[in-house]
């Protein structure tokens, strides 16, 4: 085999890899994003002086996030393997790779959510309380819209990080662009294939970032 890009061989593989990356990223962002949003809201709501202050719950959540978040993703895959097996009966495959991906995304995104929510002016929350709104209603109707712009930017950041992480998912048979670059490029001394994969990833990241910026601008109206 020649060590150059061969459209006939590589293009179908690239398209398949792109599809798998898209699939993993979407599923991860859906599951991890929602769970991360919930966890971030919980962190925000239970901190002292917030809407549902609860020292014990906040401390517990805080410790869990601090434990999980610094684990390098490649190690997290191994660490959650028993959980993956428990939930899905195995640990190899694109869908199964989503479980460690979603967990990493959830914990990473939760901090971003929390950090953006604490910047909401306390006076705005007080005004909602003064109009008779309870804490759950305020969490449900006001807190997210008030921080929507920064939340979209934070989510975009996570989006890009997930594309990065899916490259590693190849080691548990996740497939995707990263796996394509490693298997058909790097391991076969085919630098051109590596570079094509890199360019596709760069374009993908750029598009996501542009979309995120555009949405955030709309949310912030500036």
């Amino acid at each position, binding site marked *: 085999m020649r060590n150059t890009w061969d459209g006939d061989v590589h293009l179908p593989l690239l398209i398949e890899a792109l599809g798998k990356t898209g699939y993993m990223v979407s599923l991860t962002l859906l599951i991890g994003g929602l769970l991360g949003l919930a966890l971030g809201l919980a962190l925000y709501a239970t901190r002292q002086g917030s809407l549902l202050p609860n020292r014990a719950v906040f401390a517990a959540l805080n410790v869990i996030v601090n434990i999980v978040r610094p684990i390098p993703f490649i190690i997290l895959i191994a660490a959650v393997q028993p959980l993956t097996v428990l939930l899905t009966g195995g640990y190899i495959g694109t869908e199964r790779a989503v479980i460690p991906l979603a967990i990493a995304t959830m914990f990473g995104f939760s901090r971003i959510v929390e950090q953006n929510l604490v910047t909401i*002016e306390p*006076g*705005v929350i*007080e*005004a*909602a*309380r*003064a*109009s*008779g*709104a*309870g804490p759950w*209603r305020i969490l449900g*109707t*006001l807190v997210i*819209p*008030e921080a*929507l712009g920064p939340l979209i930017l934070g989510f975009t950041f996570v989006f890009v990080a997930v594309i990065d992480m899916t490259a590693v998912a190849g080691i548990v048979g996740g497939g995707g662009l990263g796996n394509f670059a490693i298997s058909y490029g790097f391991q076969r001394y085919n630098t051109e294939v590596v570079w094509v994969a890199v360019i596709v990833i760069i374009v993908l990241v750029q598009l996501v970032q542009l979309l995120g910026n555009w949405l955030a601008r709309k949310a912030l*109206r500036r």
Partner: protein
Amino acid sequence: MAAIVELHGVTKQYRVDGKDVTALDGIDITVERGEIFAIIGYSGAGKSTLVRLVNGLERATSGRIVVDGTDVSGFTERQFLRVRTGIGMIFQRFNLFRSRTVAGNVAYPLRVAGWPKAKRDARVAELLDFVGLLDRAYSYPDQLSGGQQQRVGIARALATNPSIVLADEATSALDPETTQDVLDLLRKVNRELGVTVIVITHEMEVVRSIADRVAVLDSGRKIEEGSVYEVFAHPRTDTAKRFVSSVVHNEPDAGDLERLQGRHEGRIVTARVGEDGRLGTVLSDVARHGVRFEILFGGIGALQQRAFGSLTLELTGSDAGVDAVIAELRAITEVKEENR
């Protein structure tokens, strides 16, 4: 008149770094239905805490609080939600929801109170018309000036037809002209809608301009209370005197007196100008006692639609003649002879 808000022996303590700090100390205040009641004090006097006890945003450590006939002292947060629907609140920094339009901000308390959409829309239009911002319904708060934002704040506070509005330093972030507009609007809220307004401020000008009665708060204690006229005319405490002198300077202070006494030979008296306006009648006739007068200092304005001010006079003549004039003045108003 009937009481709408009563505080009886209300105390509030915070725990800061393991020490109890007393923010409010045995406060008794009764606000009558339909009046504008001002609470004035320097920052840190406890006035923001005090007003938040009324709608339960803060809880008293001890004492009894009655709102609209209901003792809310032991109310839980859930019980307070209903109370708050009947109490509007406006804030120094407006605290509008930036993610919502002007109409969305005003509609929020109505959503909370469960109004159906058609009723809500009609009410929002009515309120925006009342505050003069109907044409800005679909603007966002950051597209409005400070004064306009506070108008939105007032419309939002009035949304659910509350019987009480709490105004926490509502004009402190505004320039003088806009301040007057917002105060006028608050007066209109009070007079036209019959809403009781409780105003928290550190500006005596606000008190003079709209309040009926005022309480002076100092280090968590109520040190003075009365009608605005009374407190302006007879401030009893140094704090109240300082507040009064921040807006009226009708009476000469020590420096003014020294200067006046250096230049004038006669006896110097300060006479209060009351409602009856008979000061001139007496003065026009002092020649009868062989006494001449000169006006040295003073000012006359209006306070709560009543004449308010004082004149400092030099009286020259025989001691007996001047004594006679002072006696005549004392018969119609308060007179203070400035010491030599």
